[in-house]
Structure formats: structure tokens, C-alpha cells
């Protein structure tokens, strides 16, 4: 198995200014530019230091429970009658989602930099829980911004964060979801920049976050690429992952970027359907989504004609975000990755199908990726392989699902 789980190949994108092609960059108030410079320097130091790799790899093995397995979804594959479906089991990582990979990586970095106060944003609560967990482990104080809409729909995670010693700060501005939690975290950082480390949870925001988060998540694809070859004897025909900000997807895709035979498929939240206008499918609805600037980076942004950011909808809080990580915008433009979407209804169906056929209750976010696999598999030959990133488990979503299924 790969021992060094984070990037050492410095020729990869982004470029020195943080751009992936025409996407990325640093569109932030001047106050935090020096902090981004400091972070970039500290990160470069850390990845050049074998002891940092050792410490992270040690925690991944002995604390997170890595490598997470790849499971063959036999009954689901038989039922669909086409491609064989394999699941990368990030739901089995400690805390129940891939978010812990990045939280531990950045947490170790914060400690190395001597920052004692950690702030984070969370949508579904998985990044908040991952961060609260890592901070409890590392002994750092932690404040998590969370929109009040998300607090309501992700109660178990709110309680978890509090139990882990984090302070959850409700955000009541704007749409009161992930977007507004990021606004509030950035405002906090602008005000307390000298003492505070902003532990951003997805592959978005100003440089170096999209790069750093990708690197800390690339352990997913690095493991899965070896595991799937051990199990099937070859590379998969396609990797499928859900895309909100896009950290689990980029973490999966990165290891496969040069494998031309492997299609990379990102699945956005189709909400109530594109025609309803209530969704978070940044690449599927180009009437209201186009390149713009949000949260420090240039990428596709759902916005009105006047450049005001639009409110999004998804049944899954983790995908309910009006922009998308800049590297995804670049991969799409290069036609290296393809992006599609699944509606709330399709995700809910996939949620139930996987529970019944495999005994795995997936997160609603991951259910979007599964929905695409369920659509595709029957159209593919039986000897083809789909690798789905099961980015998290669904316990946190039970209230939401029970509410919808009861109606």
C-alpha cells in the first residue's frame, strides 16, 4: 500500500498563483493575504518534511482506520445486470466520512504553525465533526460556523460537535446554509487572522486551499486505485463521486488523472430538477451558472443577471452550495472529467436501494454518486467496473429521510 498519502509531485496544478487553467486564484480582502502566504509557505515546508508525512500516515492508520476498504456491491450489481459496482468505503473512516482526512492534515499543519484557535465552516456537519474530532485529538480550541437551516436538518452532527468540545456558532445571515457559514468564517478570519487557523473543509476558497484540501483527500484515490486493481485485475471504467465543493471527488479523481481509460464522473445535486430552478447543479444549468467569483476563487457560480449569488437547494446539506471547487471547473473545461446530476428523488431512491441490497446506509451526498451508478450500470457490459466513492454514511440523514418518506 502507498505509504505517503499526500502529494509530492510539485509539477501538478495549480500554478504559482493558484490557478487551475483559468479557475482559482485569490480574491480575498488584503488583510488575509499575508495569512494565505504564511499558510502556503508552512504547507510547502510540511510536505517537504518526512516527519510530517510520518505523523499523518500514523494517524491515518491508527486513528482514522485507513486504508478504508473497497467493497464489491454484489447484490446491487446483480440487480442492475450490467457493470460491476465497487464502493470505496470512506463511510468507514473514523467519524463516518472522508472529511476527517483533511481535518487531520490541516490540524497537524495548524499545530506545526503554532496556531491555537481553529475555525471551520460546515454544511452537512461532517466537516464540522471531522474538525471537532481532530481538534479534540490535537488539543486545540475549535469554533464551527453553521447555518441555522443546516443546524435544523443535521441535529445529530450538531450534538456530536458539542460533545467533542467544539463551539457551534449559528449563522443567521443570507440563506443560512453552507455559503453563509463560509462568509461568517471568513469574517472571523479577517478579524482574528493573527491567532487563527481557518480549517476550510472543501476544495474551494482562495489558494492554497483547493490544492491543499485535494492533497489531503488524495489518499482516497491513491488507496482505491491499488485496491481496485488487486480485486479486479485492472483499472475501473469509471470513477463516480458526488460534487458539492468537490473534495471527496477531487480526492478520488486525482490518482486517476493520467489513466485515460478511466472516465471521471462528478455528480451534482439536481434538487427538484433543473427546470424547477431549485438545485445546486453548477455545471448543468448554464442559464444561471457561469464563471464568477465567490469565497476567494474564480469558478462556476450560480448567480442572477446582476451577479448576486443565488440560493441553492438540495436535500443533502453537503451539496447545497452555489459554487464548485476551481479544479473541477478546470477538469470539466479540459474534458478530463464529466459532470452530471441526480435529483433529490433519485438520491433518496439510491439511499434506500443500497441500504436494502448491501446493508450499507449511505450519506445523502454519496447517494447522488450511487444514483448515477444505478443509471449507468445497466447500460454497460458485465465485465465493466464502476468505482463509486461512498464518501460518508447516512446515520446523520435519518431524520431528513424519515421526514420525506413519511410525507
Amino acid at each position, binding site marked *: 500500500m502507498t505509504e505517503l498519502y499526500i502529494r509530492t509531485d510539485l509539477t501538478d496544478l495549480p500554478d504559482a*498563483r493558484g490557478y487551475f487553467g483559468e479557475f482559482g*486564484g*485569490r*480574491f*480575498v*480582502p*488584503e*488583510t*488575509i*493575504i*499575508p*495569512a494565505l*502566504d504564511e499558510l502556503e509557505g508552512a504547507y510547502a515546508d510540511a510536505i517537504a518534511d518526512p516527519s510530517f508525512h510520518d505523523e499523518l500516515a500514523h494517524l491515518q492508520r491508527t486513528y482514522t482506520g485507513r486504508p478504508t476498504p473497497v467493497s464489491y456491491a454484489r447484490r446491487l450489481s446483480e440487480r442492475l445486470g450490467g457493470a460491476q459496482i465497487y464502493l470505496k468505503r470512506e463511510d468507514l473512516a473514523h467519524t463516518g466520512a472522508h472529511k476527517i482526512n483533511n481535518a487531520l492534515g490541516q490540524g497537524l499543519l495548524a499545530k506545526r504553525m503554532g496556531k491555537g484557535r481553529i475555525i471551520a465552516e460546515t454544511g452537512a456537519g461532517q466537516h464540522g465533526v471531522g474538525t471537532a474530532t481532530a481538534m479534540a485529538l490535537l488539543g486545540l480550541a475549535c469554533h464551527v460556523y453553521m447555518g441555522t437551516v443546516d443546524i435544523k436538518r443535521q441535529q445529530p452532527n450538531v450534538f456530536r460537535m458539542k460533545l467533542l468540545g467544539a463551539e457551534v456558532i449559528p449563522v443567521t*445571515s*443570507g440563506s443560512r446554509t453552507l*455559503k*453563509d457559514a463560509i*462568509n461568517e468564517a*471568513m*469574517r472571523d478570519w*479577517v*478579524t482574528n*487572522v*493573527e491567532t487563527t487557523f481557518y480549517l476550510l473543509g472543501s476544495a474551494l476558497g482562495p489558494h492554497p486551499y483547493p490544492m491543499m484540501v485535494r492533497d489531503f483527500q488524495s489518499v482516497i484515490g491513491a488507496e482505491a486505485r491499488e485496491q481496485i486493481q488487486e480485486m479486479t485485475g485492472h483499472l475501473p471504467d469509471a470513477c463516480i463521486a458526488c460534487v458539492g465543493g468537490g473534495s471527496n471527488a477531487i480526492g478520488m479523481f486525482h490518482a486517476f488523472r493520467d489513466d485515460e481509460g478511466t472516465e471521471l464522473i462528478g455528480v451534482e445535486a439536481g434538487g427538484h430538477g433543473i427546470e424547477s430552478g431549485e438545485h445546486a447543479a453548477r455545471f448543468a444549468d448554464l442559464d444561471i451558472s457561469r464563471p*464568477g*467569483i*465567490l*469565497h*476567494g476563487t474564480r469558478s462556476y*457560480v450560480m*448567480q442572477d*443577471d*446582476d*451577479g*448576486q*449569488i443565488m440560493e441553492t437547494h438540495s436535500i443533502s446539506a453537503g451539496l447545497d452550495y452555489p459554487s464548485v471547487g476551481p479544479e473541477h471547473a478546470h477538469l470539466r473545461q479540459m474534458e478530463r472529467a464529466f459532470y452530471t446530476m441526480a435529483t433529490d428523488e433519485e438520491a433518496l431512491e439510491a439511499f434506500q436501494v443500497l441500504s436494502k441490497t448491501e446493508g450499507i446506509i449511505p450519506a445523502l451526498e454519496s447517494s447522488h454518486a450511487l444514483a448515477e451508478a444505478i443509471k449507468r450500470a445497466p447500460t454497460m457490459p458485465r465485465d465493466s467496473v464502476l468505482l463509486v466513492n461512498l464518501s460518508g454514511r447516512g446515520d446523520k440523514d435519518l431524520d431528513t429521510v424519515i421526514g420525506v418518506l413519511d410525507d
Partner: protein
Amino acid sequence: MTKVREIHGLAALDKMFASSRAQGRAAFLPYFPIGYPTYQESLGAVEAMAHAGADGFEIGIPFSDPIADGPTIQAAAQVALENGTTVRNCLDAVRTLRAKGLQQPMLMMGYANPLVAYGTDQFVRDARLAGADGLIVPDLPPEEAAMFAESCAREGLALVFFLAPTSNDRRIAMAAKHATGFIYVVSLTGITGARAQLPTYLTDFIARLRSRTDKPLVLGFGISKPEHARQVSELMDGFIVGSALVRAGGEGVAAVRELAGSLRGAL
């Protein structure tokens, strides 16, 4: 018959600083967002401040996600957007104020995305045609500003950049090189409350900036009371008051006029 403005853009800002400097004080540059609490009242607020002796204005363009603003300006932006305020309305506001005879420099202040959506070249040209003299974009550091720098230079408009006490020598050199009109200095921790003196970190920082640039230095963030204005006036070429005036704007134009008058009177 209104008086036609003879100079505009960078020259108008230079003249403004020369005039306040000649009077031995800093220029008073209030910020006010268009569309708050209504479009008409926001114009009324700017006019009232002009009569109260403001030297120039930041004309706020509302944005849905203003990451560099505190709760007061966030809430005002939300109200302005609920009122249907657009970028075009903000340019119209400037045109209307000029038609009413307002002579002071006006700088458009707004976040990058709405301006990018409008079209950066088109926005800068329309801003100049409306009678604006410069542009301030809080989420646009100099290294990302190429899309505005060229058109501002072509139209003769100021393009203002920020510095903060966290800025190192490299950042200071970059802002000093690229900023036109003035440099917007952000006082990191604010200077709210009845302080007897300005915090030393700020006076030290300004001294450091003075040794590295001749560009006018304007202080923003956290100035709300006449005694702040008086202290700042000795140190700076200009100062911006935002939240306190916006709060007053919620009470009405009379409250804005009174606060602006007391701030100006303290200089």
C-alpha cells in the same frame, strides 16, 4: 443651472486631498450603500452628507455575500437587494447626484462578482460616464486586478487597493506601486470606543507606510465618533466612515446629516 465639473477621476481626487491638506486636516470620505433603506433615501443621505461638508464618497454597490463587512453593512446590503437594487441603479444614482450638482469625488465600492457579471470594461466605462472617479473592490488584491487596472487607467479612474497592519513589505510595495488615487488602510482591530489615543500599532504602521510611499493614505474600519475623526485627522490624508453612517441611515436622512456634520465639525 448646475455647475459642470471641470475635473474628474484621479485629478479630482488629487485636488480633494490638496484642498483638505491645505486646511490642515484629513479628507472626510463617507461610505453609503445605494438602495438603503430605499433608493431615494440613499441619494438623500449622500446629498445631506455633501451639504454637511463631506469631501468625497464611497458609493456602495450591494452584494449578497459581503465577506469583508460587519453585520450593519451586511444587513443594509440585504435590504438594498430586497429593494431590487442593481449595479445599474448604483451607476444611475451617481449620474443623478451629478445632475443635481454634487461636485465631490465619488468612488464606486463593490465586490468583484457583480462587476464581473456586468463586464469589467463596460462597468469602468459606464462608471466614468455616470460621473464616478474611482473604484474600490474589497475582494480584489493587486495581483488579481489586471481585469480592472487597464480599463481604469484608460478611463482615468482611480483603482484603490488596501493595506492592513498584517501587510508585509512585499505587500506594501505592491499596493504602493499599483494603487491609484489613494491607499485604503484597514485598521485591523478597529478603533471603536472612547480611546484617548490611537493604538500604537496603527501609528507605527502609518509611519512605516509613509517611509515607503507618497500616495495618500486613507483609514477605514471602526471610525464612528467625532473624537475618532479628530485623532485620525492628524495622522491620515483621509478617513472613511461606513457602519456608523449606515446605522444612522436606518433612522433617516436627518440622523445621517447630524452625524456627518459632527464628524466633519471635529476636524
